[in-house]
């Protein structure tokens, strides 16, 4: 792993989606790590301190929204941008301030940086990851 490689954590309860997204990220020049549920997600985030967290919304044990809240309350983690990726029909609600505040009423928790709907388009996903991690987009690198 190159020292300047940005690190991305993917949290999703579906193994196939973890493999998909980590492969896309590795092919795109990122270091990828993964977690299969919200609790493991928080553990890995604390250990790895990634540059970006990609989060599914509906997961067992602990939902993506609940994990998001923990990340944004943790002084060590709160600066890490979060990209929600979900097939949840109302994923855009997370970007709608009113709907978002119904899920997380505490205004100390900021709205998420970005939300994407499943299925993702690989170039759009990589462009979003590049922007959120402050990397030049992979298209520009090519």
């Amino acid at each position, binding site marked *: 792993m190159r020292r300047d490689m940005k690190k991305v954590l993917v949290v999703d309860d579906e193994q196939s989606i973890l493999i*998909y997204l980590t492969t*896309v990220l590795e092919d795109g020049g990122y270091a990828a790590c993964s977690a299969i549920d919200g609790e493991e997600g928080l553990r890995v985030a604390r250990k790895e301190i990634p540059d970006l967290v990609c989060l599914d919304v509906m997961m067992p*044990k602990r*939902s993506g929204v609940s994990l998001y809240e923990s990340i944004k309350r943790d002084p060590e983690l709160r600066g890490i941008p979060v990209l929600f990726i979900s*097939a949840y*029909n109302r994923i855009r609600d997370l970007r709608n301030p009113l709907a978002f505040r119904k899920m997380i009423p505490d205004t100390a928790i900021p709205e998420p940086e970005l939300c994407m709907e499943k299925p993702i388009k*690989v170039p759009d996903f990589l462009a979003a990851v590049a922007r959120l991690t402050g990397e030049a987009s992979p298209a520009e690198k090519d």
Partner: protein
Amino acid sequence: MPQSWISDELFDRVPVAICVIDRDFQVVDANAKFTELYGEWAGHRCYEVYKDRTERCLSCGAAKTFQDGQTREREEEGVDRLGRPTQYLVDIVPVVREDGSIPFIIEMSTDITELKNLQRQKIEAERLAAVGQTVAGLAHGIKNLIMGLEGGMYVVNSGLRNNNEKRVLQGWQMLEEDIGRISSFVKEFLEFAKGRRPRVEMIQPNEVAQKVVERYRERAARSGVDLRLEPGELGEAPMDEEGLHTCLTNLVLNAIDACVMSAKDARHVVLSTREQDDVLTFEVSDDGCGMDYDIKQKVFTNFFSTKASGKGTGLGLLTTRKIVQEHGGKVSFESTEGRGSVFRLEFPRENLPEPEKDDAAA
């Protein structure tokens, strides 16, 4: 003056149709509202006036009141003076003499046709809303499947590009799993859409609860969950036994899964039953993982599942709700994240369907 007004005018001024019927079912008196609703009554029998029938009704409330002297209230369907179908709520009150005989009964009816129409429209609107939700849920499920298939293809291609055989195999495996999921998804969806006609019979609901608990006790124990039944006093009830079995099974299995997802040592699922004020209640409570806000919002959404892929299709609670609604009941729940959940099925006796056998006998 009020006394004379009550005796002279009230009969014709009340907004309720009133008639007096003798033991021969002849209408012997009626008020203005009755005449306005049902037309000419003098010299006619009640069933001719109310329903345009030529003989007595099969299940005649008036005859029962003549027999037992009880006041009763029931909903009836009839025909108004212009021949239009009407629905009315009728109170049947006996006129009892000192010697206990009942020479007359008084029937007071309120036209509820409009109310019933609104009720039907509401049910139809809810049905259409449910269809909309189903389509939205289907789209949600398909989006997940497409993501999985695209993922498999991407990983295969990436493996080929990078000469990474392990990755190619990994991608193929993803594709195979996803295609398997599509098959079971479609199968389950068709089963849900097709549904089955409920077979309503007089059953002892506690026996059904017992069967469900016996069937899953061992499976629960293997997962470290103590499953038990706390039966209350529950009378026989006209229900679809298989439907009730499905509902309780879904709730019990969900509760066991919720316990498995929780990290606690001692975990319990209790199925309890009770009857109070003519409402049959079944409760499944667990001290498992509970649900947080956004999961609670999606509990009754089809294809929404928190279980690992392949383990839940997200139709269980939706099917349960459908069956409970067919019995005129409702499903509710309370849940606290980390503390557990209680799912409750409530069936008011008055809403329960008629058992099939009685229909045949009538």
